[in-house]
């Protein structure tokens, strides 16, 4: 009986190892191809291992760095993600706290409006949003966080509101009696309690903003500014004329920073995702 149980556990681990390989393989494949010479990359030989004859060293990577405007796009993507996420976690937590704490018809209407905006597909507003952004001069990477704040507010307010409800009122009452203004109460008393939720929201929003393709494509002036997903899609569009080697290298370059962040922060990321879902 015990041996049988041990055997099934081993089989299960074996199966999981095979699955894990299948999960990693697509990325390893791109890595292998990014090291090949241009002439060695074709549809039929994608699965071939790189060897002495086809090895190109890091040439593809240096090309990707120099000719694709890669660094500039990386900078834009980083800037947009950091500003948007910072704005969302600070301003949306304030908003969510207020509309949960102060009961009025207007506040509960606002809450349902935020929840509604979470479900509505982006296609509904994409054209009018890009026109509004043009009109208000929000069509550059430096102001794009305002759009992300507006469009990301739904999920963020929803998650923060869910958590604020579980904070006991007495703590805040004590702070008010001790002479705190509501702003002080919020930043000195509520924010420390909200911290885990802030991490969750920050992770979910960062994953969304960093990888978002359609919104920046429609809102930004594509001739001047490209984020990383826009850059990849832009060069893919000229399929055939574009060199595949540097292309694969730039895909790797977009994946590597994300994977590094993931390896160091995986505990928080996985916890954040799980916590985010439970709140829903």
């Amino acid at each position, binding site marked *: 009986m015990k041996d049988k149980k041990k055997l099934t556990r081993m089989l299960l681990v074996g199966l999981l190892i095979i699955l894990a390989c299948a999960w990693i393989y697509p990325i390893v494949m791109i890595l292998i191809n990014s090291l090949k010479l241009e002439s060695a990359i074709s*549809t039929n030989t994608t699965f071939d291992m790189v060897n002495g004859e086809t090895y190109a060293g890091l040439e593809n990577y240096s090309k990707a760095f120099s000719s694709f405007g890669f660094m500039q796009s990386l900078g834009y993507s980083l800037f947009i993600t950091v500003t948007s996420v910072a704005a969302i976690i600070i301003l949306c937590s304030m908003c969510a706290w207020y509309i949960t704490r102060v009961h009025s018809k207007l506040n509960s209407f606002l809450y349902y409006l935020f929840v509604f*905006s979470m*479900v509505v597909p982006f296609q509904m507003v994409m054209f009018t949003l890009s026109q509004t952004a043009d009109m208000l001069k929000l069509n550059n990477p430096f102001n794009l966080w*305002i759009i992300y704040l507006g469009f990301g*507010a739904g999920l963020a307010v929803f998650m923060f509101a869910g958590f604020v409800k579980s904070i006991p009122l007495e703590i805040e009452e004590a702070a008010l009696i001790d002479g705190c203004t509501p702003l002080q109460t919020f930043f000195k008393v509520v924010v420390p309690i909200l911290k885990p939720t802030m991490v969750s929201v920050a992770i979910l929003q960062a994953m969304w903003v960093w990888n978002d393709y359609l919104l920046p494509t429609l809102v930004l002036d594509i001739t001047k500014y490209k984020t990383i997903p826009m850059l990849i899609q832009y060069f*893919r569009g000229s399929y055939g004329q574009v060199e595949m080697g540097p292309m694969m290298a730039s895909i790797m370059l977009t994946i590597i920073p994300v994977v590094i962040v*993931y390896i160091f922060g995986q505990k928080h990321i996985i916890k954040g995702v799980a916590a985010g*879902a439970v709140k829903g």
Partner: protein
Amino acid sequence: MQRTYKKYGWMFVLPTLIAFTIGFIIPFIEGLYLSFCQFTTVGNAVFNGFSNYIAAFTDASFLRSAGFTVLVAAVNVILINVLAFALALALTQKLKGTNFFRTVFFMPNLIGGIVLGYIWQILINCVLALVGQPLLKLNATAGYWGIIILMCWQQIGYMMIIYIAGLQNVPDDLVEAAKIDGATDWQILWKIKIPMMMPSITICVFLTLTNSFKLFDQNLALTNGDPNHMTDMLALNIYQTFYARAGKAWKGIGQAKAVIFSIVVVLISFWQLKTTRSKEVQQ
């Protein structure tokens, strides 16, 4: 307390509300209005009643992409949830390397849809070339299954995380009591674990369903609708109606399609939440 807070209300709500107005409320209302107009920019809209809606419903490509979306969503929801649940069960058995597996399965979620679509296009095309089948550009069946495989690969890890959290919340004493009463593992799964996990199931089905309906990036990068718009999903069809068709009628029709699409997504979401919520048990 409420009164003290109220004086400062504008400080807390206004920044988000202004951005929300710019980013959602104005575009939404404008979009609703424009679906009844003929226009090429917001400035030159001319009211034309329901003709955009009539054109949308008689547009064969719209109906076809709707059918395709439903087919993708149905298979996605079932496959992703069943497999993610199975993985979550396997990873809560205290096996060796559990942490490593969890890390690996979740990883694709961090990579954007455009990059994922591109990676899988390269991979699938190579497989197709090796078995002598037409490439994705000419092969709608491969495109369909490609989208499904890609979505499974990306989303199983995410749902697995949620299911693991749910499984860890099932009280041990319930499982123990059932074991003492002589229940088999299979009975424990169906009679205790699954009913106790309905909140997780609700959320995962909701996420997979809405993600499948709203799918855009992966569709654009993997097949771009090839061959001949056979693999267009709704979001891509609407995008193309706006930006890829010449003629001043199309933007209005695209906006009408977007309104129909939104209504469908909102209705399905709320219907799904209601039906699975009703199956949740009180803890």
